[in-house]
């Protein structure tokens, strides 16, 4: 690729993606992370930043899976402990995935980021189950033969909204 092509691609990212999407295999980007012994993923577009060594500030009057606030650039962010929500076990960590939300400030407490991947759409699967826990997941992906659930950030906010209304 010469520099002219390079600049064209940089200046017209939409064209690039359409080229990509015109192919049978659209590439999807995910942040794969561990939560205790489990692995989950988030669409990369839903992650604003990964932050290490964060202090968590206790907040009363909220459900236990809200571990408090984190201070991100002087603003309070709600910290969700999914290990506590899904597995009833408190996660000891100070690593956060800050969610990219339009109208709220929230992040997930995680053990670590495993990798950031691009996978073809054929490896992305719809969730067919209709049970209660499936509402937290957008889809699942196959990675190295393992099925990994992709979280739906908005569903966590909806759960919290319901819980504090009670």
């Amino acid at each position, binding site marked *: 690729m010469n520099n002219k092509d390079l600049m064209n691609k940089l200046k017209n990212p939409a064209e690039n993606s359409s080229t990509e999407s015109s192919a049978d295999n659209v590439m999807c980007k995910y942040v794969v992370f561990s939560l205790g012994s489990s692995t989950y993923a988030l669409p990369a577009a839903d992650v604003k930043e990964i*932050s*290490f*060594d*964060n*202090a968590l*500030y*206790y*907040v*009363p*009057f*909220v*459900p*236990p899976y*809200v571990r408090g*606030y*984190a*201070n*991100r*650039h*002087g*603003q*309070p*962010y*709600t910290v969700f402990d999914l290990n506590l929500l899904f597995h009833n076990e408190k996660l000891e960590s*100070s690593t*956060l995935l800050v969610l990219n939300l339009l*109208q*709220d*400030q*929230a992040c997930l407490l995680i053990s670590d980021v495993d990798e950031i991947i691009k996978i073809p759409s054929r490896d992305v699967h719809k969730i067919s189950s209709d049970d209660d826990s499936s509402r937290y997941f957008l889809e699942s992906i196959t990675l190295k033969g393992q099925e990994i659930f992709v979280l739906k950030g908005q569903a966590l*906010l909806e759960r*919290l*909204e319901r819980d*504090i209304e009670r």
Partner: protein
Amino acid sequence: MSAENIIKVLTIPHSDLEFQINREQCTTSVYIAETEKRKTSCVFLQEGLRLKEKIIPLFNLDLFFQNIFQAQTSGEAHLALIRDRKTMSAEILELLGMHEDAFYLEGEERPDMIAFRVASATIMTDVMLSELCLHPSVLAAHMEKQGVLAVSFAEGDAGGEGDAGGRMRYMIDLDILLEKKILNALEDNNENSDCR
């Protein structure tokens, strides 16, 4: 910054965090010299402050911060914030009345004041409105109803990447704590005290 964007607050330090109360919710303050044990069904109202030969209900805000906000002890809590009843709503006065029937001895004079025990190191400071952060949207209305209006972070703690120190400050509304029966909750009715 214009004066209307600055509020005077009482900042109450604990070893790991701070609480702020709007100065307008406090008439004056005195050092606690003499108290008297009193029994009520409210866990945070178990003593009276003796002031000019009268007994004033003394809510233990220091203990409230420890129990509800998991604040570590403030060390010494010998300061009483005094609140004039005339500045309180009829609804709050009615709620207070329920406890005071148990608090006061028969025929005892009921002064026009209540008091709150806080850390001796409490100071008055100016806070710029821009320093106060609203809660994240999903929790904002809920936290306001619990009397925690806003938070802010101590200077020098921008958060993350090794900067794990610093303190969070909670801006507290005493009227809401009383109105919603949070500070004055009954001992066997703690559903408002802590959702955890």
